[in-house]
């Protein structure tokens, strides 16, 4: 069924009786060409591009719970392409281009909203770092504008310009950055993959990965064994547990990232604003809630919930930056499980086991990567070649020291990001 305004009108006039499931709920087949472990954003987009670009449809996505139930369903929905290290910048640039055609491609309104992102800076040194970033974005063919203090004030006069602990020097403005409706992204990819023949199998936890003579042969699940020529692990948040089924240890630690949404309010913040000194970022959803967050809770955890010190720190940062949000009430807080890699950048690679591939380590930035992650991973799975936009997300880069992608400069070691 094709979605359109006309269709909505027609259904509305006929009692909304014609709507059909967005995807099927098939029973697992005994064998697939390719099995994807993980029905989150990355797994679903991988399945979609396998079908769309490579004609591979004898594919199953195995999801432990319900599709889109992981981090794609609990993030702060920011989409941007503002990285400055080669290896990252071309990848996120590629991703943003995919975002820009996603609604038409999926025939699903994911509400990708290019409202612009403002990355604030607070010193000469930070401006220099912002300039390095902005220049990289420009050389990548993306957009970036360096705003001075007064230009920033003209855009966002409600920031605290006069009495800030860390004075506002300006911002790096990324007009094509913005947000998208996170759940819709998962559902759109799910519907797109399903309609092309991919089996999305919910409530199907993988309990083992079968390896014979150094080659993967399938998986064990709570719904029985499934044979597969290739297996793709895309289980961010549980990457280490899945990899352990194949006897692997990954360079990943799992941490909590909390986020918050306020009660619905009339429009007051038009952009996405990030406040680096306060580890704080904020935007306002189309429903009117202020959606915001900060840094990790900083302890290994799978609990998907955080604690008050970080909650309060984030709120303090909000009050420091824009005291006009003080009367907004926090409606809900939640936590996601972040795959933290040593250098803060992802891993999309083969493993030492033939036919077994891994896509993990998205740290706290996986949402914006969803289109490109699936796109380049599908390319790798289908062709066994690295996609040109993702040649550096290598699993062995930590061991060799080659191409470490440490955007924050805090170190290619755990717990520094």
């Amino acid at each position, binding site marked *: 069924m094709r979605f359109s305004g006309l269709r909505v009108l027609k259904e509305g006039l006929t009692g909304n009786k014609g709507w059909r499931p967005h995807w099927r709920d098939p029973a697992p087949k005994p064998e697939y060409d390719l099995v994807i472990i993980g029905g989150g954003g990355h797994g679903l987009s991988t399945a979609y591009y396998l079908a769309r670009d490579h004609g591979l449809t004898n594919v199953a996505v195995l999801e432990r719970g319900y599709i889109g139930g992981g981090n794609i369903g609990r993030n702060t929905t920011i989409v941007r392409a503002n990285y400055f290290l080669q290896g990252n910048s071309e990848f996120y640039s590629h991703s943003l281009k995919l975002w820009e055609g996603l609604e038409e491609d999926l025939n699903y309104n994911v509400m990708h909203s290019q409202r612009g992102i403002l990355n604030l800076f607070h010193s000469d040194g930070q401006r220099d770092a912002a300039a390095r970033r902005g220049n990289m974005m420009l050389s990548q063919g993306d957009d970036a504008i360096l705003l001075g203090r007064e230009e920033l004030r003209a855009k966002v006069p409600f920031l605290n310009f006069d009495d800030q602990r860390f004075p506002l020097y300006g911002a790096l403005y990324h007009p094509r950055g913005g947000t998208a409706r996170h759940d819709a992204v998962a559902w759109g990819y799910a519907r797109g993959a399903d309609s092309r023949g991919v089996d999305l199998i919910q409530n199907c936890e993988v309990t083992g990965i079968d390896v014979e003579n150094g080659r993967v042969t399938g998986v064990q699940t709570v719904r029985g064994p499934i044979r597969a020529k290739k297996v793709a692990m895309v289980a961010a948040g549980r990457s*280490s547990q899945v990899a352990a089924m194949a006897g692997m*240890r*990954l360079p990943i*630690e799992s941490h909590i990232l909390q986020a918050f949404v306020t009660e619905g309010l009339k429009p007051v913040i038009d952009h996405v604003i990030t406040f680096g000194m306060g580890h704080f970022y904020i935007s306002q959803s189309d429903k009117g809630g202020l959606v915001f967050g900060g840094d990790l809770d900083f*302890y*290994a955890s799978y609990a998907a919930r955080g*604690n008050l010190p970080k909650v309060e720190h984030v709120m303090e940062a909000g009050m420091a930056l824009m005291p006009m949000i003080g009367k907004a009430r926090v409606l809900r807080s939640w936590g996601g499980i972040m795959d933290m890699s040593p250098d803060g950048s992802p891993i999309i690679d083969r493993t030492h086991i033939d036919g077994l591939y891994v896509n993990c380590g998205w740290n706290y930035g996986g949402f914006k990567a969803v289109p490109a992650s699936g796109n380049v991973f599908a390319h790798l799975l289908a062709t066994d070649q690295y996609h040109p936009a993702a040649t550096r997300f290598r699993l062995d880069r930590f061991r060799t020291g080659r191409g470490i992608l440490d955007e924050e400069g805090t170190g290619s070691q755990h717990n520094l990001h």
Partner: protein
Amino acid sequence: MRITCPHCGDRDSREFSYKGHALALERPAPDAGAEAWDDYVHLRENPAGETRDLWHHHFGCGAWLVVTRNTLTHDVLGCELASEARR
């Protein structure tokens, strides 16, 4: 979250900073080989369950601590001084 510092007693986690798995105490010899060093610096069991990790009572007594904790429930099961943990 609250951690019982062996020196200071029961304290709010806002007084601590964190360094990850207590594996960091097991520094290999310089000539232990690339694999041992890769293990030490990068690779992790990353357990969903009980783990031992390093906390620093940064705002308090300055002690480094080894905390035994459950990453699924946040239960804190034990805490000892790093300086005594390897004895």
